[in-house]
């Protein structure tokens, strides 16, 4: 029989292929047949089965052999029913290609499909695993997912591909969640940036290729900076901070005001070098260098024990200082924490309060930046006595003026001007330039001090 081509046409009976011996190498075509494969055939050559039903049996492939099943149905038994537990097995170490050249619908039972070890898997419930044989969701992929043309190892979404949300209608904008698990982060990568959309396809947020973020607007760009821009057509943006669901702080700007706000009743603190430098307490009092503000001490408080200049203009034209418990109002000079005075102009002056005493100083002939000690000119002591040219006005004198080079000059006026003083008080003293006399009012008339 060797070398004779055999074609089995329409057959009504089973053909015992087991009768074909190993020398039967001529291609065999069985068309429109119902074939009952009996024993295992291990070594036939090229076998083409057209429009056949294979009821049972096993086809074993050998080297260089190929099998084509066209329009074939395989059953596990001769009754053509009971597909459950049916098996179609392709054996053979060289079975490298399985071509199911169908153009219709590939159907089957509800059983498991397992291709490769942890490569492609469908369980009996219809869940599909890629990279896993234990899908925990309808589609469980262990590994990266690549959409569209890949240009790297990252997850990529091609220009024509989209993630289709549940329901299969991308235009419906169903919610969709991506989640990183345990220690693994969730990454999105866009070579030229990322854009995020919400309802109606409106772009809401964008991260540009430089890492700048824009919410409600395209990111703003500043060379050397990374920016976060928030935009709203009506008022602007709000940077909101919540604590366990409660809004506690906000930074926002309207068209007219920029606000840094502590929403709940908590202080607002400012840090430099991660150390608190200033705070505003819930009453609106400002503390500089201190977090402990005292009620009743005023709306601006400095750290206790601070000395030197506390408030000053940039040219030190006005300077408020504290040193050794004494308060200074200084003009054109500063007072450092060590009690050192520094001139900011060619002259300076100060008013200081020294434990109940008010001291007035003036200085001239200074050089800007030079150190000096203020020169006292006048003081009002705690008793209310005024000393000029003395730091210790006599207790008996309400006004104590002392000098070895200057005197005290009374107001100079003519007799007419003197007499025009309305209701002069007793003891009032003037120098009458008409009379060239020092005059004192007795209580009823002007008297001259005749020896002068």
């Amino acid at each position, binding site marked *: 029989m060797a070398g004779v081509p055999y074609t089995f046409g329409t057959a009504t009976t089973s053909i015992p292929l087991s009768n074909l011996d190993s020398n039967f190498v001529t291609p065999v075509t069985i068309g429109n047949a119902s074939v009952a494969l009996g024993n295992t055939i291990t070594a036939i050559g090229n076998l083409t089965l057209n429009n056949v039903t294979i009821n049972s049996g096993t086809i074993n492939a050998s080297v260089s052999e190929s099998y084509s099943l066209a329009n074939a149905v395989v059953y596990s038994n001769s009754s053509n029913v009971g597909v459950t537990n049916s098996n179609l097995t392709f054996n053979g170490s060289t079975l490298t290609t399985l071509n199911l050249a169908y153009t219709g619908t590939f159907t089957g039972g509800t059983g498991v499909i397992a291709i490769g070890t942890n490569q492609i898997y469908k369980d009996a419930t219809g869940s599909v695993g890629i990279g896993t044989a234990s899908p925990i969701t309808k589609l469980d992929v262990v590994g990266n997912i690549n959409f569209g043309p890949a240009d790297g190892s990252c997850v990529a979404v091609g220009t024509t591909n989209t993630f289709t949300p549940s329901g299969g209608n991308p235009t419906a904008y169903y919610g969709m969640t991506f989640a990183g698990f345990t220690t693994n982060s969730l990454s999105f990568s866009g070579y030229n940036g990322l854009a995020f959309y919400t309802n109606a*396809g*409106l*772009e809401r947020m*964008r991260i540009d290729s430089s890492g700048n973020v824009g919410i409600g*607007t*395209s990111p703003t760009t500043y060379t050397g900076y990374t920016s976060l821009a928030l935009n*709203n*057509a*009506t008022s602007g943006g709000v940077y909101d901070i919540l604590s366990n669901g409660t809004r506690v702080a906000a930074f926002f700007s309207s068209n007219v005001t920029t606000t840094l706000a502590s929403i709940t009743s908590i202080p607002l603190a400012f840090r430099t070098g991660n150390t608190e430098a200033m705070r505003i307490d819930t009453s609106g009092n400002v503390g500089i260098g201190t977090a402990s503000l005292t009620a009743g001490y005023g709306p601006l408080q400095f750290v206790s024990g601070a000395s030197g200049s506390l408030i000053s203009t940039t040219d030190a034209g006005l300077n408020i200082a504290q040193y050794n418990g004494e308060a200074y109002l200084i003009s054109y000079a500063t007072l450092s924490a060590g009690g050192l005075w520094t001139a900011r102009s060619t002259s300076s002056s100060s008013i200081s309060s020294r434990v109940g005493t008010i001291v007035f100083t003036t200085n001239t002939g200074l050089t800007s930046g030079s150190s000096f000690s203020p020169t006292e000119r006048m003081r009002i002591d705690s008793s209310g006595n005024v000393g000029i040219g003395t730091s210790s006005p006599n207790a008996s004198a309400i006004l104590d003026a002392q000098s070895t080079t200057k005197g005290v000059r009374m107001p100079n006026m003519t007799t007419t001007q003197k007499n025009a003083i309305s209701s002069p008080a007793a003891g009032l003293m003037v120098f009458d330039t008409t009379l060239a006399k020092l005059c004192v009012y007795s209580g009823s008339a002007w008297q001259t001090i005749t020896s002068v």
Partner: protein
Amino acid sequence: MTTFNWQVVQMDRLTSDSFVITCHYTVNAVDGDYTASTYGTTSYTKVEGETYIPYADLTEAECVGWVQDSLGKDTVEASLQAQIDLLKNPVQESGVPW
């Protein structure tokens, strides 16, 4: 040659009289293989006594005109053109030496 495509993709309006208070816009610039885009919003306030085009009669061209008047058409297009110029002739690049 860069072409600029202005679009108003969404508008917010008052329910009482359909006065448009916000336009959401996008501007896409294309020069060959280089593209740049921007998006944002512009707001509008109703002035009593003024007459307005009925909402149903508004066209996208009219609304795009509002946005362009608000933002400055030339300013926006110049900004996008600058982005495209940077794409064409980048002044910085990224990478690691290893």
